[in-house]
């Protein structure tokens, strides 16, 4: 069972996801989803929050009820919650949920770039000036076309022999 605080967050995320879905459904499918879905999530989440704060009876049952109410948005809500970013960073329907893309334009002579938004993420792909880089290493010093990815700091480092040129387009995909 997910923790109470996790379920509260998932319900908050699912609420806005459902809210968006409902408006689209109303336009294109004449409302096949209960149009009160987002409202229900808000209402039950508020009750759940109060129950948690006051240690009321049947909190586990309420936890499960609110969790289940997130329904089909649960997976996406989990991804958003895990990544700590807004839904706008989720590539819906492409590359798999949770894959994120960032880019930077370092100055000439730099050998590393900080991707603050990618701290803690696993790197999947990187390119320099639209060309794929070589192997990823996670420790040591990169040589040739290797790149060093430090997940803890979000820093991508290239070999000192091949520093970036001015405004070089550096693109990464992480999850």
């Amino acid at each position, binding site marked *: 069972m997910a923790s109470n605080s996790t379920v509260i967050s998932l319900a908050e995320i699912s609420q806005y996801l459902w809210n968006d879905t409902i408006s689209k459904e109303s336009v294109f499918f004449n409302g096949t989803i209960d149009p*009160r879905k987002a409202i229900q999530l808000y209402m*039950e989440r508020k*009750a759940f929050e109060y129950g948690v704060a*006051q240690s*009321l*009876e049947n909190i586990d*049952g309420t936890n499960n009820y609110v969790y289940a109410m997130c329904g089909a948005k649960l997976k996406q809500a989990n991804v958003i919650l895990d990544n700590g970013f807004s839904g706008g960073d989720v590539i819906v329907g492409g590359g798999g949920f949770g894959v994120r893309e960032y880019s930077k334009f370092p100055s000439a002579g730099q050998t590393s770039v900080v991707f603050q938004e990618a701290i803690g993420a696993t790197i999947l792909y990187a390119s320099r000036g639209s060309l794929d880089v070589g192997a990823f290493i996670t420790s040591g010093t990169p040589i040739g076309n290797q790149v060093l990815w430090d997940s803890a700091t979000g820093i991508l480092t290239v070999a000192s022999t091949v520093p970036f040129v001015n405004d070089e387009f550096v693109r990464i995909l992480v999850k």
Partner: protein
Amino acid sequence: MPLSPNFSASQNSGLPNVINLTDTSTGSDTSITKRRIYLLQANGQYLVPSGTTTNYIEWNITNVNTREPLSIQLNVLEKDAALSITVQWLTSSNVVIESKTTSYAFTAYSETFYYGLTQDQIANPLLVSATDWYENKMILRVEIDSANQAIIFASDIFSAQAALDRASYIIENSNYYF
């Protein structure tokens, strides 16, 4: 260091009739020997425990260095209320040294009832499909939220009390609404 006056108030589901006040002031002033609490209601009347003959409630200080006891429980609420609470810190000759006023919406009666509706729903999920039942629950939610927002955004105990009165009406007439 002079006293920087502050206090907090809370209410809980188990004893919704009780307001818990805590003196959270920092600093000290040993000339302060007593506190007084004023619970101003939206109708302009002061709320006091039964048997109290003054507009205020005495909150004694037994240790002028620590201002203990730092908490007091006031058995004053028969239903949810929006209150403007003033705490005064006074000398033994009743000179007010410090004063602090904060507004609160006490919503435990309504929130607890609302939580109970969710429990009914868990036991009988079809209640969600009962339009009146669910819309009435929604109205109750709006009233509770409105009361809190009136306090948070404007310290407006009048609007907050009006919302809480509407919530109380729903609860008192729950046989009709749920």
